[in-house]
């Protein structure tokens, strides 16, 4: 086990590369003779292409090809009509209607690629793309979930969204009841880096890909299946990714198309989509409507909760997420029922977005908890404490660790919760109404399978390798700390190599699971190296012969006896004496069966202070405190950054983010960063982050649980609750824009 002391904050190991422009993202790589792709998108949301004129584009200067459904080169693995599946390649059809890029004249969603233009420069490709002319036979598109909620269907698969504990309608007979509807609009990941691919066929059946992917192994596998070539012949590189937030969790059809066209044309091809295509070609958080019914007794004990959610998906693929899951296990409530439905619309398919369904569900559940606390005239924290559970009521088993009470307490102190008045609308400073709100977040703490290789060289340097990519959380820094903690090699002698399929296989970066999964493999490989050193030192003829492993300590390249520091040997001498230039260990790591005995979750609590201007309806988040209960914090500095990032994302989700469709045309009207408002500097105050930082004794040898998702999950609810506390008005439709506030206040 790692020593039970808090880890020091260290600078990000890739910091220098990132501040000097030296970090290379996929589009930064240079391959001689590269040509450029530009996608032409459909201007209707449903129908068929009646005519497509590509002659002018074809004849434009520098154009190497214009590819449409009429001349798209084959993708051998796509012979069968296939639906696609999140987080993986090429599965079986799920619905009657399926989508294959540039495979037919049928239009299934607005912006669907109808042509890919290839030219020798980006400017020429862009110009030629403007010359592609299409006419359409248009059909009425169904894009408005609100109009089609009744058409919700239960998704196929194990959980199907339905869950019942106790009686489904027990809330009805409770002394205090609540029924409320909550809406989350379409939100778009919008990482700063545009999506795309740089693809190069280095031989007839060998492929080099620079990708914007959260998992190089997943991209490799998807391409292997699409082109029916062995994965080992496909090299995928994605050391740096300019943000993903979930949009890089799958290989998107246009990536596969570019690879196919590159093979046809015989040149390396680069695709960088434009910002408006980020709204239609790489997924989004689905529009979701939710209803919560809740019943409690006068003492503030929950009697029943029913949570129903209906979300949009594409006509051609069923996307699902865990929107209602938090309700099943968060509170000690004897009667809980959940229901999850999807509606197939003429829209492009969603994909998980940071804190995926849980962030959507937490907004509803934690808003409802606040509403019920108000009905009960209870402090919202007190209400949660009265329904606190130390064991998971969904699975009837203990949590691997849960320090949520401490999180409530420390967060409340930090925000100044005592200043909050339980009676809403009762604090005013000048023109502004002041309110405080809080909310809980939770997300599974996973322990996936991963592998890592660690090499200790006789010169004392250490190299850590894993295929995992680093989309921004600081994976390289965390892995460095984990290796450092086991082998005590100075930080500046540790090098981490990642984001490449030539390295040991690792899962896709997502689900807040990487420190737990890859970190464990690094831990195991380092531990194995440490054992090898101890064996060399204590074997017959060794410098510390006869000593036991637990008598020894390893620090700064010296192995010594704990109680007799003078008895020691330098690791470099030990390796040289044994003719070892390197000790090289690769470990696969996954959790043991004992993990099944526990429910493993990370928890967060978000506190905010808001100011609401009753004359303009403007809401400003003026203070934010986020508390993470996610086990041992491996890298405090990057962990704190993840938490403040969740706050910024949460402010956007709560106050500004909404992709708006004009349903007459089924098209977005604000598909750019000027009109789709993500939080900017001026929206985000100074933020306090608090780490409970207590190791989880079960999940992995570091005791670390994930935090990428919990940083966001729940935050929007805290803002909505604070707006209520400030104004006495409850807004259940995100985002909380001034018009909604004004409507309530006048």
């Amino acid at each position, binding site marked *: 086990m790692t020593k039970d002391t808090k880890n020091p904050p260290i600078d990000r190991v890739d910091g220098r590369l990132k501040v000097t422009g030296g970090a290379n993202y996929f589009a*930064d790589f240079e391959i001689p003779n590269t040509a450029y792709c530009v996608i032409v998108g459909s201007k209707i949301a449903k129908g068929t292409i009646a005519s497509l004129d590509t002659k002018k584009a074809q004849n434009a200067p520098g154009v190497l090809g214009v590819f449409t459904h009429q001349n798209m080169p084959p993708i051998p693995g796509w012979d069968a009509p296939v639906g696609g599946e999140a987080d993986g390649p090429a599965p079986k059809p799920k619905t009657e209607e399926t989508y294959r890029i540039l495979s037919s004249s049928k239009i299934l969603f607005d912006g669907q690629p109808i042509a890919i233009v290839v030219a020798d420069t980006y400017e020429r490709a862009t110009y030629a793309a403007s010359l592609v002319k299409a006419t359409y036979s248009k059909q009425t598109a169904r894009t408005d979930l609100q109009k089609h909620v009744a058409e919700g269907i239960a998704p196929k698969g194990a959980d199907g969204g339905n869950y019942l504990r106790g009686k489904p309608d027990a809330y009805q007979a409770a002394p205090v009841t609540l029924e409320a509807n909550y809406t989350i609009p379409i939100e778009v990941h919008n990482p*700063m880096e545009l999506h795309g691919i740089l693809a190069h066929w280095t031989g007839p059946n060998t492929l080099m890909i620079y990708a914007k992917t959260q998992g190089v192994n997943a991209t490799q596998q998807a391409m292997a299946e699409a082109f029916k070539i062995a994965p080992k012949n496909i090299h995928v590189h994605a050391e*740096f990714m300019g943000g993903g937030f979930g949009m890089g969790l799958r290989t998107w059809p246009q990536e596969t198309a570019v690879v196919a066209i590159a093979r046809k044309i015989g040149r390396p091809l680069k695709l960088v989509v434009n910002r408006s295509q980020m709204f239609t070609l790489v997924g989004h958080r689905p529009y979701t409507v939710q209803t919560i019914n809740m019943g409690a007794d006068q003492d503030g004990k929950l009697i029943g909760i029913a949570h129903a959610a209906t979300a949009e998906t594409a006509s051609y693929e069923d996307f699902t997420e865990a929107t209602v899951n938090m309700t099943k296990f968060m509170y000690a409530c004897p009667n809980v029922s959940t229901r999850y439905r999807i509606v197939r619309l003429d829209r492009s398919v969603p994909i998980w977005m940071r804190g995926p369904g849980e962030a959507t569900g937490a907004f509803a559940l934690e808003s409802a908890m606040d509403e019920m606390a108000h009905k009960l005239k209870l402090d919202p924290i007190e209400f949660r404490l009265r329904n606190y559970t130390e064991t998971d009521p969904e699975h009837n088993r203990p949590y691997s660790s849960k320090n949520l009470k401490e999180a409530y307490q420390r967060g409340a102190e930090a925000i100044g919760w005592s200043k909050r008045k339980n009676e809403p609308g009762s604090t005013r400073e000048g023109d502004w109404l002041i309110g405080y709100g809080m909310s809980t977040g939770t997300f599974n703490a996973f322990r996936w399978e991963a592998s890592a290789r660690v090499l200790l060289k006789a010169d004392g340097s250490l190299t850590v390798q894993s295929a995992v990519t680093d989309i*921004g959380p600081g994976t390289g820094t965390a892995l460095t700390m984990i290796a450092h903690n086991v082998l005590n090699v100075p930080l500046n002698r540790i090098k981490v190599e990642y984001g490449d399929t030539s390295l040991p296989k690792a899962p896709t970066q997502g689900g807040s699971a990487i420190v737990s999964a890859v970190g464990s493999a690094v831990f195991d490989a380092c531990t194995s190296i440490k054992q090898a050193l101890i064996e060399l030192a204590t074997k017959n003829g060794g410098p510390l012969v006869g000593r036991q492993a637990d008598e020894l300590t390893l620090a700064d390249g010296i192995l010594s006896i704990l109680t007799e520091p003078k008895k020691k040997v330098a690791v470099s001498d030990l390796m040289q004496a044994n003719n070892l230039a390197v000790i090289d260990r690769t470990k696969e790591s996954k959790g043991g069966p004992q993990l099944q005995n526990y429910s493993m979750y990370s928890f967060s609590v978000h506190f905010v202070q808001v100011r609401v201007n009753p004359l303009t309806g403007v809401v400003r988040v003026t203070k934010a405190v986020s508390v993470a209960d996610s086990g041992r914090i491996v890298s405090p500095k990057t962990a*704190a950054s993840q938490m403040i990032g969740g706050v910024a994302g949460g402010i956007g989700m709560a106050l500004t983010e909404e992709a708006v469709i004009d349903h007459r045309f089924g098209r977005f009207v604000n598909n750019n960063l000027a009109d789709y408002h993500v939080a900017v500097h001026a929206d985000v105050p100074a933020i306090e982050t608090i780490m409970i930082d207590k190791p989880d004794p079960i999940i992995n040898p570091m005791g670390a649980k994930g935090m990428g998702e919990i940083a966001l999950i729940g935050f929007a609810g805290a803002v909505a609750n604070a707006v209520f506390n400030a104004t006495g008005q409850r807004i259940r439709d995100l985002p909380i824009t001034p018009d909604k506030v004004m409507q309530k206040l006048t």
Partner: protein
Amino acid sequence: MADNERKGNGFDNDNSPRRIFLKKSSALAAWALTPTVAMTVVDNGLHEKVALAVEQMPLWLTINGKAQQLSIEPRVTLLDLLREQLHLTGTKKGCDHGQCGACTVHVDGQRVNSCLTLAMTTEGCTVTTIEGLADGGPTGTLHPMQEAFIKQDGFQCGYCTPGQIMSAVACIREGHANTPEEVREYMSGNICRCGAYANIVDAIMDVKKGGAKV
């Protein structure tokens, strides 16, 4: 045109880059927009070479201290020139519409969105990108702002970082970094989707308070 004539604000005299560009491009447009000429070129299969010849225009400018004599298409943006032709990929493309700030560079000391700047308009200008802010590189000296970003962890994925840093340096030079509130206002053109804002503001205030020359 002598060197000293190319300097200045560059936008309001007869020899300004913009005027020169407009003159050149008007002549080009008159020629290129004659449909029969264009189509004849295409039909004769000469379009590649001819297009290349007519699309290329001379451009003189200084990038990161190095004088450059270039020949470019007039529709190339400064951003794409830097990235696709000069291998200066530290400057990033986030939106291509001047909405995100990822492409921020300095032109004659002013921060600009290089995606909204046609390269031809920088004739005679001095351009500084993230690669030219300091000696940099794997081991070189960092600019105080780069140091501060590392110290305060003013980034996560790192994609917006070059733009944030270029903007941050300009923010201080402009005198718009007197309080955290002012910094937030004057840095709001640079979006960070990872949400490192609080740390970025701390980094800028560190540099401002440290008093180092930026």
